Structure formats: structure tokens, C-alpha cells
């Protein structure tokens, strides 16, 4: 590992538990590089996660880190941010953690526009429990709990976040890492609730069941299917079917939650 990045890791905890070719390590590396590029104060960064493979990431990262219960990272993070708005809060979460068991917390954190950067390690599967389908698993894909093919329709997390009120919404992939780092930087600099949906790969559970058992095959799929927001805007719905649209979807400046609460305090204490 590059020397300047070492201070961001708990090097005695590495190597990580993730499988060979798992994209989680790539996203974690991108997060750390973005933090380094922005020169954030390490002792004021707080990284919160839920449960699952991705939620192990904070354990390797040398910040104030909190590994919570399944789906609840945003609830804990909201408490931390409310109590101490000086802290920079990141939530690292998986697609199941964020959109299934944690779905309600997700939409409400977005609605409040609380200043938390949520990065979804979206590998379309429950990895920690061995490959069950998640709300992000594509229709017809196979999983241990969808042995005949998945009949659930999957979420578009970016659309969900935007309609719930998130004020920065973007999608990156583990293939397009330089772009991913830039998107993370933008999300971290954004004041308000930012969502970054990162298309990730799980060769072990998703790949093996869906004829892409090598990480290379999965990466190739991302490379082939990715289109930029700009190109997508010129494509028909049919042409977009199965495609991964990457880039920034939404950015707006809306009063941030803890700043609004500071005004409540002012009012309660006699100001206007």
C-alpha cells in the first residue's frame, strides 16, 4: 500500500476478509483516496456501517468507526451528526442493508437532508449470509433464495434517493475508479444528504450463480453495460434496459438538517 494512505488503515487488521476479486476493497480504497485528496481531519471523520460484508469496511479504516446493527447505520449516524454536527459522517452500507432492512431509515435520512454521505456497496446480493437475493438483484437473476430466477423487481436506488429528498445523488462503479474517487469527493464536499450508489461485484455469490464466476467476467459486464448520464439521456427506455447509468443525477442546495435545528435552538432560546 502507498505510504501516504497507510495512516488511514488499521494495517494490523489487513488483509481483509473479503474474497479474491471482491469489489469492496476497491470501494474502500476509493473512499480513503477521496478522504486523502480532500485532506479531511481524520479525527473528525466518523464512519458508520450496518451488517454484511460491506459493513466490515470501517473495521479496517482508522477513523472513529461504528459497526452497528443490520440496516440501522443511518439511524446511529443521524444521532451522531445531530449531537455533534462538526463530525464528518460517512455511512458505508450494502444493497441489502441499505435498501431492504434499512430502507425506511434511508428514505428518511434523505428526506431530512442531514449531512451524511452514504456509499452503497451495491453487489446485488447478500454476501455475508451466502448469496440470497436483495432488493437490488436484477429480475431473473439467480440466488440461493431464487433458485428458479428472481421474480422481484429491483430498486433504482438513485431514483429512490432523489424522490425521497437526497440533495446529491450519483452512481459509480468499481471499474471506473478514477471517476468513483471524484464522485466520492463531490459527495463528501456536498452539504446535505448525499448518496453514491456504487455498482460492485461479488464473484463468489452473485457471479458463480449467474455464469460470471470470475471477477474479470463481472468487471467486463460492468464495462459493457455502463453508459454515462449524458449518453443515457439520448437513449430510449428499450435501449437503456439492462444498462448501468453512471455519473451525477442530482445536485441541489437545500437547508441542511442540523443547520435547521441550530435555528430551532436559537428560537427556543429567545431569538427569532
Amino acid at each position: 500500500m502507498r505510504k501516504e494512505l497507510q495512516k488511514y488503515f488499521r494495517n494490523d487488521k489487513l488483509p481483509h476478509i473479503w474474497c479474491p476479486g471482491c469489489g469492496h476493497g476497491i470501494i474502500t480504497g476509493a473512499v480513503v483516496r477521496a478522504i486523502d485528496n480532500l485532506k479531511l481531519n481524520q479525527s473528525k471523520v466518523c464512519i458508520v456501517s450496518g451488517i454484511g460484508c460491506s459493513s466490515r469496511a470501517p473495521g479496517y479504516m482508522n477513523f472513529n468507526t461504528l459497526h452497528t446493527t443490520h440496516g440501522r447505520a443511518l439511524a446511529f449516524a443521524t444521532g451522531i451528526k445531530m449531537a455533534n454536527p462538526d463530525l464528518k459522517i460517512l455511512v458505508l452500507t450494502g444493497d441489502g442493508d441499505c435498501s431492504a432492512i434499512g430502507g425506511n431509515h434511508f428514505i428518511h435520512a434523505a428526506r431530512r437532508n442531514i449531512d451524511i454521505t452514504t456509499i452503497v456497496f451495491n453487489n446485488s446480493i447478500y454476501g455475508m449470509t451466502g448469496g440470497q437475493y436483495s432488493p437490488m438483484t436484477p429480475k431473473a437473476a439467480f440466488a440461493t433464495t431464487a433458485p428458479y430466477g428472481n421474480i422481484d423487481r429491483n430498486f433504482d436506488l438513485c431514483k429512490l434517493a432523489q424522490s425521497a429528498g437526497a440533495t446529491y445523488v450519483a452512481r459509480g462503479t468499481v471499474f471506473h475508479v478514477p471517476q468513483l474517487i471524484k464522485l466520492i469527493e463531490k459527495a463528501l464536499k456536498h452539504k446535505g444528504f448525499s448518496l453514491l450508489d456504487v455498482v460492485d461485484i461479488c464473484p463468489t455469490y452473485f457471479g458463480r450463480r449467474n455464469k460470471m464466476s470470475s471477477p474479470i467476467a463481472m468487471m467486463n459486464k460492468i464495462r459493457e453495460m455502463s453508459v454515462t448520464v449524458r449518453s443515457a439521456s439520448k437513449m430510449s427506455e428499450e435501449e437503456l434496459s439492462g444498462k448501468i447509468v453512471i455519473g451525477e443525477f442530482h445536485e441541489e442546495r437545500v437547508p441542511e438538517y442540523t443547520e435547521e435545528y441550530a435555528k430551532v435552538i436559537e428560537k427556543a432560546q429567545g431569538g427569532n
Partner: protein
Amino acid sequence: MTQKNIKIYIDEKACKKCGLCIAFCPKKVYGSEGGKPVIVNLSACTDCKLCELRCPDYAIIVGGENIE
């Protein structure tokens, strides 16, 4: 355009042999030796660092300055 003093460091203990660096190097700098990356064409390297950024295990450093 190639740069002469580019060095690539591979941390063999960290490498989990996923093969991503080998497969996706735009200049085919790497070959495989039992799944592990070996440098076969250093002069082609453009210092794009994609292999380093895509390595899930932080096993690659591209560039001169940090390499022992």
C-alpha cells in the same frame, strides 16, 4: 508515451490472485504466473495507476517515489 523510471511494486503477501490487474491493464503490462501478476512489459506502462486503484487488496503501487 512511456516514462522511463516508472516502477511497479507488487505486495505478494497481500495479493489474492484475483487477476483484475492483469485483465484490465490497458497496455498489457502484466502477465500471469499461477494467477499472480508478473510484470512482463514495464516499458508499456503509462503510469495510469488503474491497476493500483482497482486492486481490491492494496497490493500494487505504481510510481517511483514510494517504492523501496
